[in-house]
């Protein structure tokens, strides 16, 4: 009896193992299905690719004869990338977002220059003269960026960042555009005095996102409020006929901005809990409607904004304003950014680089961009007699269902691979790459509560609130896509600067009356001791100069 039991259990175990391995193999065979197959690792969290396929995906498969086998990160991307590198076993195609530099350092990518020369019909068309911007410091091209502007025409409807002020505040004060940050803050404090409570919660004049890498909403404030477009790590100013990298980490603008924040704190109206909140808590707090203003980038809180816009009372969402500090030139928007630090490349482990390249080149085509961004004519969009694309109300509804668009249509999987900049125009020169930037769709999607604001200010789009960009910047913009060599002295130095600012900015904002200057001095003492700052700035300057050089010089 005992022996029988033993044998039976052994047999069961064996069956499970065999069945398991067979299942794994069967799974692999099923995805091939007569098509060429490439594996891809995409550094953006997404659900597993649907087994039954997607509308966009099936169309791409039909066009290219290629099926992708997707892998997505679970948890921290950095650690996953570290593992991929340490394992040395790469998928055919890889896009690790801002960690691409580490893969490059490990020699994971093959250079694409020859392939572009031979097969890159669409690559040449998109990148054109600016193709040199894609080159790494060794002169080769290794990946196609996530975003790249096409042509010169720009069509924008949304701002990218600014001071966001709640609609009810603007309404109460008769739709002003504050002259400077000081005036804006006075307005917020005054509003808080008049309405100390919002639905039973305390009304706060100001908050700032501080969670993890998203903390730039707080740390970039000197950059934003001194009127710079989003260069990220440092200001870039036109000095003596050249673009010069000027860090704002401890400059005068930083001193002034946080002093103004301190003023709100001293009035008891700064949401100090924000210093210990994570991203979800930040969004939850915004969603409560009790925060009057903050500085951030549009995409970080768009979900909450849209939620509040559709909810009663309909004046708790925020309008982006181009406010800067007194004495600084107002110029907030930047040119369309060529986001060259992130993108998809072919790895050294790919057995068929030519086939993989041709696949990527198809993804770069205008035909594919239109399918990705607009869908298919008849079901997703229509073309009017002037050749302009638009969507019917039903189609707009279909495309506002993000779940459907992401996973049934399949946009989420391809949207950030080989992209054209969503605010560029197609080769016909009139249709915007993304429907968000197309005026017809923008107006059709506007809610009444939004129209009220636009009408009150006499503006057509949210973008119109801001100054047009200084197009001379297009030769390098933006600075933040210059990546430091991983683990080098510059990298460590930047990390230390971030660390110290992370500690002292809250201390500055929360300084007691009359103590601000003392805290600032203490901050400067610690800050000045950080070694290698000159090397860090020099590194950015050199890479910026190289970019300008590649884009044709001054």
């Amino acid at each position, binding site marked *: 009896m005992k022996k029988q039991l033993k044998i039976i259990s052994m047999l069961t175990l064996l069956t499970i193992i065999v069945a398991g391995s067979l299942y794994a193999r069967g799974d692999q065979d099923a995805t091939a299905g007569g098509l060429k197959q490439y594996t891809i690792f995409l550094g953006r969290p997404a659900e597993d690719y649907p087994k039954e396929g997607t509308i966009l995906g099936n169309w791409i498969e039909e066009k290219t004869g290629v099926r992708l086998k997707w892998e997505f990160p679970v948890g921290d991307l950095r650690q996953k990338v570290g593992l991929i*590198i340490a394992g040395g076993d790469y998928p055919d195609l890889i896009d690790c977002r801002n960690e691409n530099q580490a893969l490059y350092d490990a020699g*994971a990518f093959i250079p694409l220059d020859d392939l572009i020369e031979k097969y890159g019909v669409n690559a040449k068309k998109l990148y054109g003269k600016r193709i040199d911007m894609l080159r790494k410091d060794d002169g080769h091209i290794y990946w196609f960026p996530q975003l790249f502007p096409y042509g010169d025409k720009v069509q924008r409807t949304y701002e990218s960042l600014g001071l966001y002020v709640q609609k009810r505040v603007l309404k109460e004060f008769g739709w002003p555009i504050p002259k400077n940050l000081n005036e804006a803050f006075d307005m917020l404090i005054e509003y808080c005095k008049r309405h100390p409570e919002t639905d039973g919660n305390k009304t706060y004049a100001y908050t700032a996102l*501080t969670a993890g890498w998203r903390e730039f909403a707080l740390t970039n404030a000197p950059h934003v409020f001194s009127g710079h477009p989003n260069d990220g790590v440092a200001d870039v100013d036109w000095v003596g006929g050249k673009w010069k990298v000027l860090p704002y980490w401890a400059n005068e603008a930083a001193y002034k901005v946080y002093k103004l924040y301190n003023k709100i704190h001293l009035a008891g109206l700064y949401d100090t809990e924000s*210093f210990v909140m994570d991203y979800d808590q930040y969004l939850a707090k915004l969603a409560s409607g009790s925060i009057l203003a903050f500085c951030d980038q549009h995409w970080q809180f768009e979900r909450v904004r849209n939620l509040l816009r559709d909810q009663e009372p309909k004046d708790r969402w925020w309008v982006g304003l181009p406010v800067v500090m007194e004495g600084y030139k107002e110029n907030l928007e930047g040119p369309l950014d060529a986001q060259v630090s992130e993108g998809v490349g072919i790895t050294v482990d790919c057995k068929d680089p030519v086939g993989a390249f041709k696949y990527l080149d198809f993804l770069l085509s205008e035909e594919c961009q239109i399918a990705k961004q607009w869908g298919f004519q008849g079901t997703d969009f229509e073309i009017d007699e002037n050749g302009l694309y638009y969507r019917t109300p039903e189609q707009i509804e279909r495309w506002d269902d993000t779940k459907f668009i992401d996973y049934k249509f399949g946009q989420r999987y391809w949207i950030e691979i080989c992209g054209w900049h969503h605010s560029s125009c197609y080769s016909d020169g009139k249709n915007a790459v993304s429907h968000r930037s197309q005026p017809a769709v923008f107006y059709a999607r506007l809610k009444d509560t939004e129209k009220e604001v636009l009408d009150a200010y006499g503006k057509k789009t949210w973008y119109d609130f801001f100054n047009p960009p200084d197009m001379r910047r297009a030769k390098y913009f933006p600075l933040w896509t210059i990546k430091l060599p*991983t*683990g080098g002295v510059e990298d460590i130095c930047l990390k230390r600067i971030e660390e110290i600012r992370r*500690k002292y900015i809250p201390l500055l904002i929360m300084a007691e009356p009359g103590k601000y200057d003392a805290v600032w001095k203490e901050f400067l003492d610690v800050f000045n001791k950080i070694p290698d700052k000159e090397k860090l700035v020099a590194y950015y300057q050199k890479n910026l100069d190289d970019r300008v050089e590649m884009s044709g010089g001054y």
Partner: protein
Amino acid sequence: MNSKTSFINRLLNQRLLLLMSVPFVIHIILFRYVPVFGWVMAFQNYKPNRPMLDQQWVGFEQFTNLFGDYQFLYALRNTLAMSAIKLVMGTIFAVLVAIMVNETKRGPFKRTVQTISYLPHFISWVVAANLVLEFLAPNGLFNDILTGIGIVDERVLWMGKPELFWWIIGWSHVWKTCGFGAIIYLAAMTGIDPQLYEAADMDGAGRLRRIWHITLPGIKPVFVILLIMNIGQLLEAGFEQQFLLKNGLVQDYAEVFTIYILRYGLQMYRYSYAAAAGIFKSVVSILLLFTANRISKKLGEETLM
């Protein structure tokens, strides 16, 4: 000759047992000894995915960088401080809970108390940290209570006070683990001969006397062994707890060794640096363990080895 054959005989007799132990021996060799060879990368400027001979050798540079970094010294201080707080508070409260549970009569009350006290152990830190954050938030329960009974006038941002962070870690550790930690002491207490208690009763010892003279000495061997093991773990102040509770305001007091290695080593792809820090940690841990063991031996107490 005789002993040799008997050894072989024993070997043959126990072949099944030997066979069963093989996987574990292989496992230990593979995952505990083989990785030690990786320590050589601490003396290199290791770049992944390149053969060992192509690596650049840098001698003790990684170690000098490590000890020269003030951030590392902070991390070391915080690790030791938080470990010590957790060790002392965790042990005291675990023993206290064990004694109190042991002194209650058997029955539903005892079981309920025990279950409730060890439940937090099974919550992951991700959830537990959020509970702590909510509890201590300016409009959280703790501030409600304090302002309610008038101890403080204004709500306090507890998580933003650097000087309190170690204690928040300590108390949340006690809350989460004392019930579970008590189980092992409770088990030791059931092993105490009931005759001792009866004899003490006869001699007229009260409850506190019995605890002091019988219960506590009864669990001493377990207590000492656990203490030695925990001292060996002094450089392991935890990871999730601090990682999830820290923020910019308290970072100088919150960064522990493991987080430091993650941030300045692995996240920056500085594998050599992380390896150097790892070696330092292993060596110190082994030294601590041996020292504690030796002291315990000298005092005539239980030892681990």
